[in-house]
């Protein structure tokens, strides 16, 4: 067998092209768009974009979003949705600050608390969705309401952490040797990243491994692709769904703590609309809400693209906040349409099949005619 396959590969003249999978294609588009965008920004605006610190600041400011978006990617691959992550983030920041300052808690305790809150939400939501067959949108919407309400019950006024041990970790910076910029006085300022970035990158790597090489990860794709055939293959669909929400809740807890490490403040308005940004990042990164398609590396680049666009908007002099939302909307529109067109072309054999009947030239074969 092995020899035969070897011979086949060496057959001269016939080069069989492996068709690139949908996941890899969408991933390639995301990464190349991000790189192209950044290179163009470097050439046109130069300045800040040439400064490595500004690039790393995208990570510093959005480490929590990367973690949240990873969780959403997992849920979206299994054809679900979780919109409670932003609320959980706000609750975790508030609860941890109150615990650290008022109750004299330790840093380790606050970390455990963040994980516990996330796990509790994931456990409850996962149970309701997977085992009681309730629509995920409603359950996680209620989760969001509950988390936001609990945040104001814990404390209405915004709080800032003062715990010394916590502040030491918060103000800790990791210096990256060899990279940096020159200040006005000509002195070398090395580039720095926050501890949250390391957490985010570890999470990305861990989820990547889980999705690619574990049974649970492969089950997620199977369940998201077609849950009926997944059940017939002997996959425990309910358990897989349950664990996807559990993982998402856990990651929301971690994301909340990373947010706290960045700002050091508990506030009910923390991470407002973060769930929508996380969903948008996952979509730009090539995940489909219909399930079965998605990769965590794409999601990472989705977050980076989203934030680079914001930087470009600011650099190009449009300082009013509403321009950012409008460009984000346009970018989403572009990516969503691009994905839709690409998938239609690949699956149905041409862009023409997507158009309504009256737009199609006469005599062309359409999906409708074939059926």
């Amino acid at each position, binding site marked *: 067998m092995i020899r035969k396959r070897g011979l086949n590969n060496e057959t001269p003249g016939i080069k069989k092209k492996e068709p690139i999978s949908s996941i890899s294609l969408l991933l390639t588009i995301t990464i190349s768009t991000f790189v192209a965008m950044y290179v163009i920004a470097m050439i046109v605006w130069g300045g800040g974009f040439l400064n490595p610190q500004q690039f790393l600041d995208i990570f510093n400011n959005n480490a929590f979003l990367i973690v949240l978006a990873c969780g959403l990617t997992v849920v979206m691959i299994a054809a679900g949705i979780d919109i409670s992550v932003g609320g959980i983030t706000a609750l975790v920041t508030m609860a941890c600050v109150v615990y650290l300052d008022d109750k004299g808690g330790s840093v380790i305790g606050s970390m455990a608390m963040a994980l516990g809150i996330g796990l509790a939400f994931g456990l409850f939501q996962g149970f309701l969705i997977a085992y009681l067959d309730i629509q995920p949108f409603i359950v996680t919407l*209620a*989760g969001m309401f509950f988390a936001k309400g609990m945040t104001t019950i814990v404390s209405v006024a915004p709080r800032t952490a003062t715990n010394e041990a916590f502040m030491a970790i918060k103000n800790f910076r990791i210096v990256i040797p060899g990279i940096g910029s020159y200040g006005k006085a000509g002195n070398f300022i090395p580039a720095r990243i926050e501890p949250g970035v390391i957490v985010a990158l570890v999470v990305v790597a861990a989820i990547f491994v889980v999705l690619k090489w574990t049974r649970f990860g492969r089950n997620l794709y199977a369940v998201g692709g077609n849950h009926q055939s997944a059940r017939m293959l002997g996959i425990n669909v309910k358990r897989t769904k349950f664990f996807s929400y559990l993982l998402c809740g856990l990651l929301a807890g971690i994301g909340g703590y990373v947010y706290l490490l960045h700002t050091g403040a508990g506030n009910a308005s923390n991470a407002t609309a973060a769930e929508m940004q996380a969903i948008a990042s996952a979509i730009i990164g090539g995940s489909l809400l219909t399930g079965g398609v998605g990769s965590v590396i794409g999601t990472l680049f989705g977050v980076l693209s989203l934030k680079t666009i914001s930087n470009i908007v600011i650099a190009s002099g449009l300082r009013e906040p509403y321009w950012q*939302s409008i460009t984000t909307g346009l970018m*989403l529109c572009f990516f969503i349409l691009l994905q839709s067109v690409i998938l239609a072309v690949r699956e149905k054999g041409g862009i023409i099949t997507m158009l309504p009947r009256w737009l199609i030239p006469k005599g062309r074969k359409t999906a409708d005619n074939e059926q």
Partner: protein
Amino acid sequence: MIQFFKKLVKSQLAIPLFALLLVIVFNVIRDIGFFSLNITTNNDGNIVLTGNIISILNGASELAILAIGMTLVTAAARGQDISVGAATAIAGSVFVRVLRENEITMVVILFAFLAACLVAILFGAFNGTLVSVFKIQAMIASLILFTAGRPIAYWINGGATPTVESPLLGYIGSFIPGIPIPTPIIIVVVFGTIVSLVLKFTNLGLYTQAVGINEKSARLNGINAVLMKLLTFMILGVCVAIAGCINVSRIGLINHETILLDIEMDAILAVAIGGNALSGGKFSLIGSVIGAYIIQALTITLYAMKVASTDVKAFKAIVIIAIVVIGSPTVKKFAVQLRDKLFKRRKKMTEITENL
């Protein structure tokens, strides 16, 4: 009578009616005065009805109208439009802009409303095109307008939060002289009746369900599925315009950041509490409207219990979860099994005693 109850329990309206009953019974036990109605004279010298029931019905007007449109979209497109809040901001801004550039008369108000309708229908058609032609899921497609909608509203009025004042607007937002019921309630009743009559006497309702239940077979039966989906989104656009105009008339200004904030979530919730499947297909408009009133009744009850307005969300979440858990298919099946078990055992017992 028993037959009627059996039918009711099996129907789609069982969950919303049960939830409404729950809220009412809770309030009766808590404080019977909650339901009191008073006739008073308001600042303009009109004789008006006041009381918690009126404020529930009045306050839920925008939500009820949006829930009607959302039900149709959910039924046909098997997804939800999350941009309705942003779209009401746009429609309201257009309404205010037209009003501010003209002297306010009844004709101008009508014209402004039609302009708001047109813009809202256009934005609805944008979402609808993405969903029906490009086959993008409704939630994702409307995420675009959800992100960009309120900034567009900001741009329409040049970044200000303008106010409009006119007694004529008061007729829409609060009371018409001589009629003791707030006008928004009347608008909901009239609009709801028109929509249900249209659904009853045209094929719209049937076709919408057909597309939602099985798009392919609907198409094979000659229904234009693309057009049907687009149409539901345009109807939602009309609902958005009405809701936006009511809200602007009610408070007399437009703040693009805060107008009907988070209403999309409440509208989807109303559809779900109304016993409609969020995955499309069969629908019940009256269920969704009841759902909207349940949400408002819940909020008013919590306010009456002196819960802080910021904390209301947490309690609301608990009640929502309780309602959907009771209505979930798994729990229902379990309940039926339990009832059968108990019933059979009792039957056996009676048989045994009779034999003895």
